[in-house]
């Protein structure tokens, strides 16, 4: 099993890179054969990725988010699965390059940061805590997907506004579809993050009583939650248009990255289990 895990750690970024290159040919060169290769390549990588995570669970007997590497790998897989669903549902591959490139990036980081023997932490055997982590990672993955669609939306919006019919024009789904995909991903992310905040609060209350409320990581997460809640509410009330929501989505992703990297590494010991 350990040989398989070592091999998969090496292979996964390579497979995602291969799939991203194939999707790149679809996007930039409208290559017909690349389209037929890209989807099976991604499906193959996702299957291997699932097997990899199952093996991690079987080997360490705990939820596979005990290290930064494992958490990033789960986010990568979640983004990949969300995209596979989007491609199957929408029957179009034009956004594949951007999504699979993100998956490759997360999985590459995960493979680089991998630790051969992650610590066995009791906390990861707790059901409520595992729910909290799963929901948080699902939420992050959905926000990453939402931000990717927001980025593409803003690029196409800018091209269409300026009458610049170059890189993005004609190669992406229409603005309305990109906006719908972005809003769908943000809604899923928001629900998951809400669940993560509630389950996290319940769990922390048992252990730390009120002390957890002063943790910087929680404060940043709550600020992020408020940002997404406002963006979705203003869009629903038709006060904001797609462009403002897209900008908010990118700002939200920056907040998440800040919370994951800076806050986790420098400001908190409360969320220092990763």
């Amino acid at each position, binding site marked *: 099993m350990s040989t398989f895990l070592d091999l998969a750690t090496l292979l996964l970024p390579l497979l995602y890179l291969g799939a991203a290159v194939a999707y790149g040919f679809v996007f930039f060169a*409208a290559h017909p054969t690349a389209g037929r290769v890209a989807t099976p390549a991604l499906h193959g990588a996702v299957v291997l990725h699932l097997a990899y995570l199952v093996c991690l669970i079987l080997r360490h007997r705990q939820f596979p988010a005990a290290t930064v590497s494992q958490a990033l790998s789960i986010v990568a897989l979640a983004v990949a699965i969300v995209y596979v669903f989007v491609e199957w549902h929408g029957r179009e591959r034009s956004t594949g390059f951007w999504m699979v490139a993100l998956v490759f990036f997360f999985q590459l980081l995960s493979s680089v940061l991998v630790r051969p023997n992650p610590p066995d932490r009791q906390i990861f055997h707790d059901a409520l805590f595992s729910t909290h982590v799963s929901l948080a990672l699902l939420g992050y993955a959905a926000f990453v997907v939402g931000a990717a669609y927001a980025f593409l939306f803003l690029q196409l919006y800018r091209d269409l506004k300026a009458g610049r019919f170059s890189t993005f*024009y004609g190669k992406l789904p229409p603005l309305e579809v990109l906006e719908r995909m972005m809003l769908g991903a943000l809604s899923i992310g928001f629900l998951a993050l809400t669940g993560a905040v509630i389950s996290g609060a319940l769990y922390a209350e048992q252990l730390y009583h009120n002390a957890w409320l002063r943790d910087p990581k929680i404060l940043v997460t709550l600020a992020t939650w408020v940002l997404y809640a406002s963006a979705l509410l203003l869009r629903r009330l038709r006060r904001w248009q797609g462009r403002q929501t897209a900008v908010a989505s990118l700002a939200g992703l920056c907040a998440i990255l800040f919370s994951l990297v800076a806050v986790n590494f420098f400001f908190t010991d409360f969320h220092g289990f990763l």
Partner: protein
Amino acid sequence: MSLPADPPLLLVGTDFRCSPIEIRERVAFHGEDSEHALVHLLARPGIAEAYLLSTCNRTEVYVQPRDEDEAYRSVLDLIFLNRAPDLEKPGRLYVKRNSEAARHLLGVASGLESMVLGEPEILGQIKQSAALAETVGASGPVVRRLLRSAFSAGARSRQETAITAGAVSLGYAVVELARNIFSGLEECRVLLVGAGEIARSVARPLVERGARELVVTNRSIERAQQFKEEFPLAELVSFEQRLDAVRSADVVVVSTSADEPVLTRKQLKEAMKSRSTRPLLVVDLGVPRNVEPSAAKIDNLFLHAIDALEHIIQRNLKRRREEVPHVEEIVEQELDHFRHWFHSLEAEPVVASLQKQAERIRQDEVAAVLSRFPAETHADLERLTRSLVRKILHHPSTRLRSRNGAQDLAHLEFVRELFHLDDDEPSEGHDRS
């Protein structure tokens, strides 16, 4: 007797490059006209098969001649000179023979010969003409197989290359822009400000591509009424109500001859306030401009003038031109298949004799031993021996049919000798289709 090296074909035609519209319309054939023309062509002794393609840009006749000179004279008189004697002037008609004629039809089907490179309608027109030739009985095995190659070249060019990609007319450029913004034209309400020729040329592709609603407004009511005659489902609104119409529209196409903007930034900003979050595409085809250019700064409003559409068209045409070498490659591949098929006809008598001889041997041998087997196994025995013969002969038959070039003729003779095939085998039964 051996077949000629190239499929015998003769093409006589004229198109937009050789003849002006005044001449082309005289030699345009539709419906019954085409039918009569084909019947008359077939009645000529020099013509074995015929195919007539007549569109607004070309009239072409393809024949499989029994006598090439006689066929040429017949086509010239019956189809062209009788109707337009001017075509006798040098350069008005083109004549192509054999593989060149076949290559030309494959190029036409692929959109290489169209006035607008990659124009997609031609393949449908070729299919319609083919159906007519089939109904009249004008197409025989050679023309039928040539048409099959043409369909294949046309379909492959569209699937495997970007020869038909992108809009190359004003109307389709508007459709393309709308498709980059809205999830479907079926959900779009289109407002046309101005009802002149430009508005019509834009309305046609929008309606064709399924625009949900068409609303038109024009200063002169008469012109708007004329527009409605051509587009009966269009809704007319008065020119004064145009701002109300903008509020509920998704695509606004402005093409008036006004010297002043008919839609100002202020008016559009007001209209946008009362709209939902749905974007608005405004296309200004007027010169001088009919929409205040500063309106482009309004959020969620996409304003494009005629230059932008021209830019889209030029970009798409360039992309199509880049695809020409790939399409030519497909045409050559399909032409090779057609030639291959034609050459395989020479092998058919040998293959047929070989199969007949094998079948005779099989029947004799089965008859000799059949009585030794129980009756209930006879059907199985038949099936088994038939399958054996078929499998043994499959590869040699395929190989013989796929021979390439005259040097392989010796192989056919060798096979005849090797298997002692009778020379007096009837050859009429060869399926040339």
